[in-house]
């Protein structure tokens, strides 16, 4: 694999800029609420603070609790290597890397859920059970969208899909984007599915799983969450913006960054305008995402 | 109306008497007369000393020995004769029907002699007695009559069976009714009655859970 310099630059950019996204979303929510809101770089400060702190481990937890954050971040970093996140080709690209990408996300979810169960508290179990339930329904939607992309692009590798001669356009594009946006919100536990900054453990999903982590572990987890947002956002962005336009040439990184920040803003807007869905209504939304992707497949 | 026609008619009349008889003694006497008639029928074939020997044995066994054996068993068991499934009068109608069928059958198989019709009628009568009478005695007599019918059918055949087979046949019939007599004696002693309708313990009918 000839790894050009641009791919490495994109990889580094992603690592650096990922924590910005949550900051932007919180800033947009604050703006809508008439508040000034915390600084966009708040997550950077938190990370620096957490990495400097000690840690408190629950007496009930064991080895898996400590392995959770580490393995989850490792999986996300590997997923980043496969995703052409910077506007050019990705570090590693081969037939079927979209499958590996999906299953790396599944691996990070797997170890986070196990870490939550290891705390021995009923809240950890509750969060884990809901997380597993929603991701089981989100998975088919994600794969159906990938199928649509693969069918249009005639190949099933991210690079070839994004740089393909005839990208997805027209109604199929809209349908796939809608589906992927719903999956983006579900996977990153944004508002319609889960409220990231709620205080009532009974309602949390993602937050309650990481409730017991502290110090450097919590830093790794928050950084992982930001990275995950970047990854899934990159897919939506690379599809939405009219890159390449059939030439298959490299797209300017600046345009890509603008796109991903715009996506963050859109997510912030959605979060400000909607309240959390009732738990029993969430599966309906995920199924609608699958329907959208299926419709896209039919149409294209 | 040669003698053999007469003998065939006697066989038929005995069958009718059997089907309609209400008391066991009458049935035994009718079976004895029929046995004698069948024995005499053997002389239809060209007479050789084997034929004479055979018919004498038949008469001795069917007309003399069986009635004596059955009467002994009957007195010892002191069993009263249970009513048959089919009323006596109605059995007359069945006799007529059976005779009609046997005549039709003998014409259908183009062997239309009275003896052939008589043979079929006796076989059917034997079946009827076994099926309709409840007492074990009457079943034994029914079997005897059935055997007689088949023997008569053999007589009516053009070519005669070898003597050894005839003898074996007779020996078997004798042994069969002999053992039946003993069995009836034991059943009547064991169950105090010989009504086979009541003796039906061996069955798979009891309902399962």
């Amino acid at each position, binding site marked *: 694999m000839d790894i050009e310099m641009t791919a490495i630059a994109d990889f580094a950019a992603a690592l650096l800029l990922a924590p910005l996204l949550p900051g932007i979303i919180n800033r947009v929510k604050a703006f809508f609420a008439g508040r000034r809101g915390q600084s966009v770089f708040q997550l950077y400060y938190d990370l620096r603070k957490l990495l400097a702190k000690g840690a408190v481990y629950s007496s009930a937890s064991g080895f898996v609790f400590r392995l959770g954050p580490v393995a989850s971040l490792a999986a996300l970093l590997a997923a980043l290597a496969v995703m052409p996140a910077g506007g050019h080709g990705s570090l590693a690209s081969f037939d079927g890397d979209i499958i590996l990408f999906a299953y790396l996300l599944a691996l990070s979810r797997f170890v986070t859920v196990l870490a939550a169960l290891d705390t021995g508290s009923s809240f950890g179990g509750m969060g884990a059970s809901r997380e597993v339930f929603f991701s089981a329904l989100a998975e088919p939607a994600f794969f159906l969208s990938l199928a649509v992309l693969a069918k249009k692009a005639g190949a099933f590798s991210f690079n070839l899909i994004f740089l393909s001669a005839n990208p997805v356009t027209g109604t199929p594009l809209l349908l796939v984007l809608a589906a992927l946006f719903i999956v983006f919100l579900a996977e990153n536990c944004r508002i319609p599915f889960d409220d990231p900054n709620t205080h009532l453990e009974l309602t949390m999903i993602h937050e309650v799983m990481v409730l017991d982590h502290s110090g450097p572990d919590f830093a790794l987890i928050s950084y992982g969450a930001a990275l995950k947002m970047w990854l899934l956002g990159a897919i939506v962005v690379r599809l939405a913006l009219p890159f390449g336009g059939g030439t298959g040439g490299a797209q300017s990184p600046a345009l890509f960054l603008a796109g991903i920040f715009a996506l963050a803003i859109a997510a912030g807007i959605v979060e400000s305008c909607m309240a959390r869905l009732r738990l029993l209504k969430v599966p309906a939304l995920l199924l609608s995402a699958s329907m959208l992707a299926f419709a896209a497949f039919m149409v294209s | 109306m040669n003698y053999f026609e007469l003998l065939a008619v006697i066989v038929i009349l005995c069958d009718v008497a059997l089907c309609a008889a209400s008391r066991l003694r009458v049935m035994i006497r009718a079976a004895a007369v029929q046995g004698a008639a069948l024995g005499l029928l053997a002389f239809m074939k060209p007479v050789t000393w084997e034929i004479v020997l055979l018919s004498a044995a038949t008469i001795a066994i069917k007309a003399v020995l069986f009635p004596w054996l059955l009467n002994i068993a009957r007195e010892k068991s002191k069993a009263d004769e249970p009513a048959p499934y089919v009323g006596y009068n109605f059995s007359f109608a069945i006799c007529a029907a059976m005779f009609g069928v046997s005549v039709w059958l003998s014409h259908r*198989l183009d*062997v239309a002699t009275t003896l052939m019709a008589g043979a079929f009628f006796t*076989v059917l009568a*034997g*079946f009827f007695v*076994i099926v309709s009478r409840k007492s*074990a005695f009457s*079943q034994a007599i029914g*079997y005897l009559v*059935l*055997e007689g019918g*088949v023997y008569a*059918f*053999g007589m009516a*055949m*053009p*070519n005669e*069976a*070898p003597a*050894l*087979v005839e003898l*074996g*046949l007779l*020996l*078997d019939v004798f*042994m*069969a009714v002999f*053992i*039946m007599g*003993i*069995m009836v004696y*034991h*059943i009547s002693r*064991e*169950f105090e009655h010989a009504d*086979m309708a009541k*003796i*039906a*313990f*061996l069955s*798979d009918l009891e309902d*399962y859970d």
Partner: protein
Amino acid sequence: MISAAILLPAVAGAAALFGGKALARFLLKATACAHLALVLYMCVFPQRGGYWLALDGAGLLFLVLASVLFAAAAFYAMGYLDHSAAHREAHVLSPLFGTEPQPVFIAFLLFFLASMSFVCASRHLGLMWVALEATTLASVPLICFHKTPRSLEAAWKYLMICSVGIALALLGNFFLTAAVGAREVPLLYDVLRQNAAKLDPLWLKAAFAVTFIGYGTKMGLAPMHTWLPDAHSEAPSLVSALLSGALLNCAFLSMMRVNAVCAAAGLGAFSAKVFLAFGLLSVVVAAALMLRQRDYKRLLAYSSVENMGIIAVAAGAGAPYAAMLHAANHSFTKAALFLLSGNILRRFKSKKIEDVKGLVQALPKTSFLWAAGMLAILGMPPFGIFWSKFLTLKALLGSGNYWAAGLLLFMLAAVFAGVAHPVMEMLRPAEGQSAPEPEKCIFILPALLLGSCTLLLGVFIPAPVEALLKSAAAALGGG
């Protein structure tokens, strides 16, 4: 030599009848061994047949089966008679003969063997009929040896139904003579087959139909099977072993003789259809009556009806070799199972399956053989019945009647489910089981030998046995 095989047991029987208990027991053992030796000798050096008596392949096969089973039953009887004499005073015919019951029992056992040998060896169809009637008469006193009310009822039903059936068979024989017509053709098997073409087809078909019903009653095909479960479950176990293992085969032999004549006269298709219909009906009726059966001896009896149905189906599907192999396998397995059921009955004093608990602790050797025998009779591979069932199915599918094959497979599966459950219930452990009493080898050895015969046929059919089966199939294969 052939007539010796018949006269030897007959004479021994007569001697036993009037001799003392010791003489009778000695005669039983001696005759069993002598008869077996004679039969095996006749296998090695085929005998030239006479006018009345001759041994073709089929006759020889069924004679060997009868002889082997009789030897096993004879040795089992040694232990059985000591046991039963000590426990229950039984006198069936003794008042007439004024002697101990045992000699009478042994005498009729020997008469039974003599009559079966007579059936296998007779060439003349009329003579064969006489022999078959003799087997019935010889076996009736054996069934009601213990003179319990139930065995008397069973014996009477057996006698009455079989005699009526056999009388019909005699009628069939006379129909056959009518079919021969005026020509002086004696009812000799080979002669009949040679000029079968000249027989009047209408009479021949009628003769076949009547003899089929007659001998079918003796063979236990549905709907004439009604006597079989009663007789085989109420008789002493060694008698039911002989009844199931050897007697049913003789009835099948006589039926196949008449079938061969029909096939030679070109009516093979017609007779095959009759065999197939009655065979399948027997399998269906037996399967229905085996489901949720609560008496293990009746279960074995119905299994005999089912296996006779399978043999009839094999004959009907045009696979005489499969029919012969299945008859041999079935005889060995069923006889072994009946002998074992005798052990179980003696230990648990009840024929009800739910009364038999903790068989494994109580009778370890019997329970192992019982489980193996049940697996064998259900057609699991290491045993021979699997192959004969497979061949029957192949013949059925080959001859194109797929529905019959489907029905047979379904019924076999139903029987498997129906039988496997009670057998597992019998082997279940029971709490508070008394120490297992020593099982006398006289009760185990015969069943073990018979079981190993069927295992041998399952694993590896030796060449001489193969030859015997092939010649038997050829003898009855007919035209």
